[in-house]
């Protein structure tokens, strides 16, 4: 059966991905290490904190077999700091930085390496330290909104101030969303927009709109783009690449 969904991850698929983020659990019961398909898990020995994937942590939490300690950024202090950064007039144009990346795995060799497990580079949601207690306090991970929401829904009693965190998370989401909307002014037919710091769920939310605008503009501008391409190719052949000559040409066309 073919998949009936349009291209682009849906919100529930992003939610599925975020459940692979690692979080730190504090076990209440012993559990031997398990040989999972995605790699072995560490044995759980109370009360030693252990990193586990979020889906497993939530499973343990629901059965009251473990507590989840929230990552440092998901706290009143961490979120207030990030919110200050987002609302500061000096940094009004940018999003708060994302979590630092681990060192690269290997160097690329050639075309046949696509998805080669030997040199596959890790990216969210598989970064080992973006939602565990070892995460940076002042940077948001790629799946911040989803992880925050899941932890607040299912493990609210593990927070010092769940209500405060929830409020800050909502503020942060609104501030960032309006920033993202303002940023759409730069959209044009060429795409080419840098979105560093934007989260997975935020992308899922705007994907349809942004994709539609960019593709629509491109279709409207197709003839102009093609004529420009031809002109540039001609210029290159004649050895007249760029320069003032080309700008004159653009003016005349407008």
């Amino acid at each position, binding site marked *: *059966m073919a998949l009936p969904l349009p291209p682009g991850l849906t919100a529930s*698929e992003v939610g599925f991905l975020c459940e692979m983020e690692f979080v730190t659990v504090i076990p209440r019961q012993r559990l031997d290490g398990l040989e999972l398909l995605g*790699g072995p898990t560490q044995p759980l020995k109370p009360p030693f904190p252990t990193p586990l994937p979020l889906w497993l942590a939530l*499973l343990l939490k629901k059965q009251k*077999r473990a507590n989840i300690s929230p990552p440092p950024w998901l706290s009143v202090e961490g979120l207030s700091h990030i919110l200050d950064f987002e609302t500061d007039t000096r940094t009004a144009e940018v999003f708060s930085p994302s979590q630092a990346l681990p060192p690269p795995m290997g160097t690329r060799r050639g075309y046949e390496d696509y998805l080669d497990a030997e040199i596959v580079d890790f990216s969210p949601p598989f970064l080992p330290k973006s939602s565990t207690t070892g995460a940076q306090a002042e940077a948001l991970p790629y799946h911040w909104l989803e992880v925050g929401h899941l932890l607040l829904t299912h493990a609210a009693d593990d927070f010092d101030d769940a209500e405060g965190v929830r409020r800050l998370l909502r503020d942060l989401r609104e501030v960032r969303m309006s920033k993202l909307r303002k940023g759409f002014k730069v959209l044009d037919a*060429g795409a*080419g927009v840098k979105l*560093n710091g934007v989260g997975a769920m935020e992308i899922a939310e705007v994907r349809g709109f942004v994709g539609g605008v960019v593709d629509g503009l491109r279709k409207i501008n197709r003839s102009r783009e093609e004529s420009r391409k031809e002109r540039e190719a001609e210029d290159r052949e004649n050895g007249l690449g760029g320069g003032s000559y080309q700008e004159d040409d653009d003016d005349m066309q407008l």
Partner: protein
Amino acid sequence: MDDDIQDILNSVSAPSIPQRTRDLQALTRAWVNERTSPELLSYPTPLIERVMERTKKQIETIEDITGTLDPRSNFTLVILQTELERFKFIVRSYLRARIAKIDARPLHYRALSQSEPTTLLSPLEQQYLQSHQALLSSHYNSSFLATFPQSLQKLDDTSGGVSMVDKPDEETAVFCRALRDAGSVEVMGETATTDVELQRGDLWLLRWSAVKDAVVRGDVELV
């Protein structure tokens, strides 16, 4: 000095990540790429084979544990089964996304897979494409095409300047992340063509045609 130690530590710790974990990352990436790209990407046969082999073994393990009827292992069983379902979901969604693309442009992908012996389609997908296409064209022929004039009966006519073979739109905008420094790519602006530098960790909205090669190389992933 500290950097040197860090480098050594990295080179020691990197291979310790089990292959299964790396395969999960690769499989997830393949799935997300396939879900978001406008074009069909090549089929990673070794990866899928490894994953399917492990899934089969895991099912056997689960059956073994179920057979022992040990009440203590009940919870372990729940975890193993949950994870198995998650894996099955990714693989199923991945294959279905591929079939959706094949169904949308069957003639294009048939031409592609015939003209060059690539790893674009798996043998099963190849078989599906051929037989599905054969069924469709014989159905069209018997229901209405046979009554048309001879010159209008073709389904893949490319003469007369207009091709009947529908191609995916390579200029579609995609969201992508650079996994390594991937050099510069061309951006077609409204008034001029500019180059942008893709640096590790950067998130961009770009045209598929601009990043396609980097995605195939593994330097860039779609999100």
